[in-house]
């Protein structure tokens, strides 16, 4: 796969389809890959990597890249193509400047899950069938890929690309029974007090580093209201529980109907707060109240908060656990 991608990237650079390729660059321990632009074949040969740890959703970088001009080729996993479409729908990127190479994905590994298995001192990771062989300073270990699959990939909603100019690997299907709302349902089934304690436990760890916001492909505001002193609600630190709640409620609300459920927020949270559960709640609510809708599926679709039905559910009827 990696080699095929490298080859195509090299060709696209050579035939002038693009002047740079957005992909992932090797790090020190296989899992620590950095999104990077490759401008020459040499750079590709030296640094390009794609494997089970190439997790970052590259679509958001296109906002910046479109402003830089030229033509960009980008590798997008199925879930990333939803984000791409959403950015298109919101006029944040220019389709004609971008060459999308869809790449098949069977889920990414979460290095934290590796570590939870007691694996430390990692020096190398190799794929071997359905397993990873992990070299550590304490010896080699083999783990099943399925055991270290990132949470977001366990509940993957789609292996089908919503958009691409060309595809590498086999196209998958939209997964209707992904089970991605299971945890939301579990929370809904709790009593309000239990839910309150759950979320306090999670959100109280927030250090307001903004990683969730800054990685989010839906959060592309020129300036976030929380950074804008003139908004009257700017915050630099979650000074107390209210501000923790405020930031995350408003962020979820601002991406409601726009979140593509790519899971980056939870992936990058240094405190491992399951932030995607907030966004998924809204996705689930929208599905329940206003009919199935997944942002990024169809860039021409009208977003749920930008339309209405005369007989929409009333807030009083919907506020509870069950409609």
């Amino acid at each position, binding site marked *: 796969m990696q080699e095929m991608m490298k080859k195509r990237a090299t060709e696209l650079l050579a035939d002038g389809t693009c002047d740079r390729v957005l992909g992932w660059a090797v790090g020190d321990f296989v899992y620590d890959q950095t999104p990077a632009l490759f401008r020459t074949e040499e750079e590709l040969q030296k640094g390009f990597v794609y494997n089970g740890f190439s997790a970052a959703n590259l679509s958001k970088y296109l906002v910046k890249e479109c402003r830089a001009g030229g033509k960009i080729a980008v590798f997008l996993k199925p879930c990333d193509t939803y984000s791409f479409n959403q950015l298109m729908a919101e006029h944040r990127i220019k389709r004609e400047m971008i060459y999308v190479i869809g790449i098949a994905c069977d889920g990414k590994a979460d290095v934290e899950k590796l570590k939870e298995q007691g694996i430390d001192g990692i020096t190398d990771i190799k794929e071997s069938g359905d397993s990873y062989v992990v070299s550590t300073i304490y010896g080699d270990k083999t783990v099943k890929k399925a055991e270290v699959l990132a949470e977001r990939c366990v509940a993957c909603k789609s292996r089908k690309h919503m958009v691409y100019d060309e595809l590498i690997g086999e196209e998958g299907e939209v997964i209707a029974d992904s089970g991605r709302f299971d945890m939301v349902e579990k929370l809904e089934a709790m009593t309000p007090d239990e839910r309150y304690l759950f979320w306090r436990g999670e959100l109280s760890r927030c250090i307001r580093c903004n990683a969730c916001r800054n990685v989010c492909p839906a959060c592309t505001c020129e300036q976030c209201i929380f950074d804008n002193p003139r908004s009257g609600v700017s915050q630099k630190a979650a000074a*107390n529980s209210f501000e923790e709640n405020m930031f995350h409620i408003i962020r979820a609300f601002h991406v409601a109907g726009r979140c593509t459920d790519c899971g980056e927020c939870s992936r990058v949270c240094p405190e491992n707060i399951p932030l995607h559960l907030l966004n998924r709640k809204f996705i689930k609510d929208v599905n329940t109240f206003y009919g199935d809708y997944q942002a990024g599926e169809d860039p021409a679709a009208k977003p749920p*908060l930008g339309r209405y039905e005369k007989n*929409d559910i009333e*807030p009083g009827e919907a506020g509870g656990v069950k409609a």
Partner: protein
Amino acid sequence: MQDVKEFRPKIVAFCCNWCSYAGADLAGSSRLAYPADVKIIRVPCSCRVNPLFILRAFQRGADGVIMAGCHPGDCHYTSGNYFARRRMTLLFSMLDYLGIERERTRVEWISAAEGAKFSKTMNEFAATVAALGENKRLEDLRCKK
């Protein structure tokens, strides 16, 4: 026996200018009382109510927030309350999801002719919020004296 001070909730009511604020005026001119704990903020339309305002009210010490607008279909701006309805549906659902008492928030459609409904709604809501007690789950201690 010690005299325990009765809990009086703070309630913010966002009322649209065309229907509900007029409904409140009618309640007033009809002398239909509701608790003084309810304080009204006039907005042009229910669709002007930003979730930020609602959270802000809780932060600053409100114990309940109610939004009142024209009945669906009667919006002065034709569609504002429809959008407001979706927004509040989602916001309230999220508050509930975070374990914040859902009874602290409410939306009611009150026309300019429904002074009685305005008064009844505010009486009911004030009673509900009073029964819930002080807002603790969305409080900001810095704003308390």
